[in-house]
Every structure is written in C-alpha cells, then in structure tokens.
C-alpha cells in the first residue's frame, strides 16, 4: 500500500521568554473548539475540560522567588504514546504530523489519557450536553463537533482551520503560505510567544525559531519527539 505523505509537518514554537502567562490562549482555545464550560465542582473533581493549560511553577523561596509559566497543550508527538494503545484507532497520526482524535470512534477506555505523559488529554466524564444554557449554544462553532460523554478529546492544532486553509489553497493551486493558518491560541497571543507553521519548510518562521539555542522539548528523555519546541525563558541560554 502506498504511504500517504504530505508536504506539511505542522509544528509550534512557544517562547517562554515572551510568555507572560496571561491566559488569552486558554480562552481562545475554549471559544474556538466548543470546549465545555466546567463549573467549580467539576474542576474540583479534577475534570476540567481545557485543552490548553498554563502551568505555573514557583521556584525558590521568598524573596528569591521566581515564577515559570509553561503553556501545555497536545504536543502532537511523532512517536505518540497515545496512538499504539488505543484499541480502536481513535487516536491516530495523520500525514501532516498531527495526532488526531476521532470522537465518534472513541470507546472511552482512557488508555490514551493514561499513557500521555503530558496529561493533555481530557475525558468527558460528565455529560456536557447542558453545559451551554440557552442562548450560549449560539456561540458554538459549526466547524467542530460537540463531544458526547465518554469520549476523549484534546488539542488538534485547530485542525478545522488547517482544513479550511488547505481547501482554499488547493482551490487556488498553491501551497499554504507561512502564517496563513494559525490555531486560535497562536492567533490571540499578545506577546507572540506562540508561533505555528510548517516545520518541513526550513524557511518558515517556526522552523527558524525551532533552531534556536534556547530550544528544548518537554520530557525529551521519553523519546516522544513532540512537534512543539519550547524556547527557554528567563534569559537562560543553555538548557
């Protein structure tokens, strides 16, 4: 069988020196992707549905105390631990290098959620059918499903945006331009800490930034080969 290849390999760079932890990306992602509204009790139970979280670490002790922010989203690993363990192929790797989640195939074993070392997969423990009291449901995007209960979900690099742009580019007979497609989080980030693009194109902005000496990837020792490069912050050059 022919292997399906793609000229695109989507990747992201998150510059931790620029990230201020403001949280705009979190709300943008929620708005774009029909992520359920979770109230206090649900979050207390450990069942927040945010696809993107900003981890905040305290380092040191007062008064030599520092804060480190780390936006964590699906790393779209090239060797994703979540993919081999799904018994029904609901978690799969697409030719663009994205880790995809097929909601209507998911049986809900949650094995992928356990095996994701970054814990970016969130599960619909609650039935979120009524998470949007009328007329809030008017805000729901028609480009993306509203997930049922018992189904795993996670960041998709706003695949609906990528698909749209691909369609338009194809219709015009051209490649996607650098910066033409931006996931919601990247688009809204005030400090431009997040950059997205085609890592297979060495001239794209994301490619250039991913070659920075400050680069590192999360939990690199696990060999997951994430598609997200972080740039070390705080003025520290060496990782």
């Amino acid at each position: 069988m022919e292997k399906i290849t793609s000229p695109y390999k989507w990747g992201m760079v998150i510059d931790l020196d620029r990230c201020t932890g403001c949280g705009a990306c979190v709300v943008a992602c929620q708005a774009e992707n029909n992520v359920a509204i979770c109230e206090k009790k649900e979050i207390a139970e450990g069942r927040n549905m945010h696809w993107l979280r900003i981890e905040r670490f305290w380092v040191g002790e007062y008064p030599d105390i520092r804060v480190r922010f780390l936006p964590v989203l699906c790393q779209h690993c090239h060797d994703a631990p979540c993919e081999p363990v799904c018994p029904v192929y609901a978690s799969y790797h697409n030719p663009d290098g994205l880790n995809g989640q097929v909601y209507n195939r998911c049986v809900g074993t949650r094995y992928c959620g356990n095996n994701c070392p970054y814990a970016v997969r969130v599960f619909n423990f609650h039935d979120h059918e009524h998470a949007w009291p009328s007329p809030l449901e008017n805000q729901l995007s028609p480009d993306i499903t509203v997930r049922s209960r018992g189904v795993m979900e996670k960041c998709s690099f706003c695949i609906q945006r990528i698909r749209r742009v691909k369609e338009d580019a194809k219709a015009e007979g051209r490649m996607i331009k650098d910066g033409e497609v931006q996931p919601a989080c990247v688009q809204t980030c005030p400090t431009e800490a997040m950059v997205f693009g085609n890592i297979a194109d060495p001239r794209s902005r994301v490619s250039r930034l991913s070659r920075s000496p400050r680069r590192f990837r999360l939990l690199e020792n696990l060999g997951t080969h994430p598609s997200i490069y972080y740039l070390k912050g705080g003025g520290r050059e060496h990782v």
Partner: protein
Amino acid sequence: MSEPEHALAAKSAVQLNDEMLSSMRTPTWRWYGLAFFLGAVVAWGISAFTYQMMTDLSVTGLDRPVMWGIYIANFVFWVGLSHSGTMVSAILRLSQANWRRPILRAAEAMTVFSITVAGLFPVIHLGRNWVVYYFMPYPNQRGLWPNFRSPLLWDATAITTYIIGSSLFLYLGMLPDLAVVRDRASGWRKKIYAILAMGWRGTAREWVVFRKASTLMAALIIPVAVSVHSIVAWDFSVTVVPGWHSTIFPPYFVIGAITSGVAAVITLMIIIRRVFHLEEYLTPLHFDNMGKLLLVICLLWAYAYFVEVQTTWYAHEPIEWEVWSFMAGKYTPFLILMLISNAVLPIFALCFKKIRRSVKAMLVITVLINIAMFIERYLIIVPSLSHKNMPFIWGSYSPSWVELSVTAAAFCGFTLMYVLFAKFFPMVAVTDVRELGVRHSDIRLGRTEVHTISEEE
C-alpha cells in the same frame, strides 16, 4: 501413612459418591438465604452500573490524571485469581501430585468464574460501553479494524482464549463426574445431565482418550494462563507511566496471580471442607502440601517486589522515585498491611509444619494474602497515575459508591456462581478421588507393607 487413601478404602463406592456429591443435595434454607443475599448484592451492583451507564462516568471517582481506578484493580485482581485452577489443576496434574485430587474441580471452577468476572470489567469501565463491539474485528463497510498494537486488544484475545480454554478444561474434567451424577439422577435432571455427560459410559477406550485429553489440556492451559497475566501486565508496563514502565511486570504479575490463586484455592478448600463435610477428603496433608506450594510462591513474590523497589531506588529516576515515595507516604498503612500479609507473615509462618497443617491458621493466612493482593493491584494502578510526569496536574482518586457497589457485586457474583455451581455440579472431583482409591494398594514386600499407587504409562 497417608490418610485419604485409607479412608477411601474403608468405604463403599456408594458411600463415597454420596459423600463427595453431598453438595448437590436438596438446598436448605441456609443455601437459599445465602443465594438470596448474594443475589441481592449482585442486583444492587447491576443497578449501580446501570445508573452509571445511564448517567455518565462522573458517578465514579475517576478524573484526570487517574483515569483508571478500582475497576481496573478489580480486573487485574480477578485475572490473577483465575490462575488458581490452572496452577493447582494443571501443574499438579502434570506433576502427578496425588493430593490434588479432591480440590481439582473447585480450583478449575474458580478459574472459570474469576476470569468471567474479570472479563466484565473492561466493559464496565468504558466511557461508551454501548460501542464496545468496536473492539471486534468484524467486516464493516467503513473499512475499520481494531488496533492490535494495543495491549487492550491483546487482553481481549487472551482473556477470550482463557475463558474458552478453562471452560473446556473444566467441562472436560467433569465429564465422568457428570456421568456419575446422571446415573444417580432422575426426571428432568437426568435428561439434562445426560446431555451434559455426552453419553459417557466409562469404557476403557473412553478413559484412555480422557487421560490423553486431560493431560493435553493441562499442558496447553498453562502457557495460556502465563500469557494472559503477562498480557495484563503489559497493559501497564508498555506505557510510559512512571512506576509502570518496568520489565519486571509480566513475571511479577504472573507470580502475584499464582500467589493469589493458590491462596484462594486454599481458602476455598477450607470453606468447601467445612460446608460439605469433606474433612476426610481434604486432610491436613493437603493443606500441608498446598502450604509448601504457597511458601515457594510467596518467596518468589517477595523477591519480585523487592526487585521492583530496589531497581527504582537504585536508579533513582526522579519521577519514579517521586511516585514510590508518594505511594509509600500516602498509603502507608495499606503498604505495610500488604507487605506483612503477602510476604512477612506467610514466609515466616508457612515454614512451620504445624501451621501448614492447621486449618484455622491457613484460613487466616490465605484470606490476608488475597486482601493484600487486592491492595497491591490498587497500589500499582492509582499512585502511579496520581503522580505522573507532569507535577502540575498531579491529582488523587478515591472510589465512589458506584464503583464500590460494582466491586462488591463482583465478589458476591463470583461467590454466587460458586454457590450455584456447587448445587448443580459435582464440586468434588469424584472420579479423580475414586481413581486414587483404585490405584492404591498396600503391597507386602518381604516383611514391610508398602503403600503404592500405580500409574499409567
């Protein structure tokens, strides 16, 4: 002087059969009471599960990051327990240990029932149970196929194989006994037993085939059993979860399963012996030998556990050591109970013949072992997930009433299956026990009387 054979020799065939088939007499009110109580708990568990299925999984205690909880602990525990029959029946059959005979049936039945209970849990814990058939490789117009790289599919395959295999093993071994029951039964019962006995007449040829088949099944079921629990172990060890990612898991789990199974068989033996008055058939000698087996297994288990902890400590991989410390700190009483019940107590106590031969002592030890094994499953699953690689989302888990209800229903369901089985099927392996009687003779060699048992080639 071995007691059972002489006891057998002293009684008539009918009397022997009567005694061994005593469990199948008309049920007393006590039996009804027990069955009713167990049935009630099972019904409660089923309704709790139905509630879960009608609502959503938020009725459990599961969250992120602990996405597997007591349901999976149950799953692993019951799979472990299913090694009882295989070990006792198959291994002892192949090693021709005669003292296996009275307990064969009970052990094999335990295997079938526990693997059945185990097989329910992967369906119970699903987010969308109603599409569980996606696991099956059936032809469909969407061109979809399940993912055989996933340990869960290996689980499905292995457990299916094991259920079928152990059921066959049980049924096969029961054939001659079913014939005995058929011969003693009347009315509609006779008809049913006749069908089940498959026309067994006890001819020489049938015995020859039966011997061959039983031996073959015994030989085949052992690798299945080992692979089943290794596969269940791989559910954990092929992941990147700290505390799970360890190559010792498959042998460790198999050993744990054997420990659990053997202890459960001993417990079962004690119960059956008491309930069905089989004191002459299940003698202190049996417990002595089972105790020795248990001692060996517990030593192995202790070694495996030590290896696991020692490699974690020595490598001191930060997150792995973090997981271990967390577990030891948060679940200290459970950890201590587990280590004492599974290692310290059995290893020390079972060295003494007196203890091995004491039914009361063995009951205490074996029940403690199984409690400890359940704890051990829980302590493998929950602490590792609570403290995964990313410290910001560390969490916690405690089972909800729904999960506990289903757990209780599993235990009671298992027991209920046993209770029903004992009523309708020969609980003691009549044929095997009688066989011993047939084979045994005391031969005079010169001035000594030698106790002999003949074996077929």
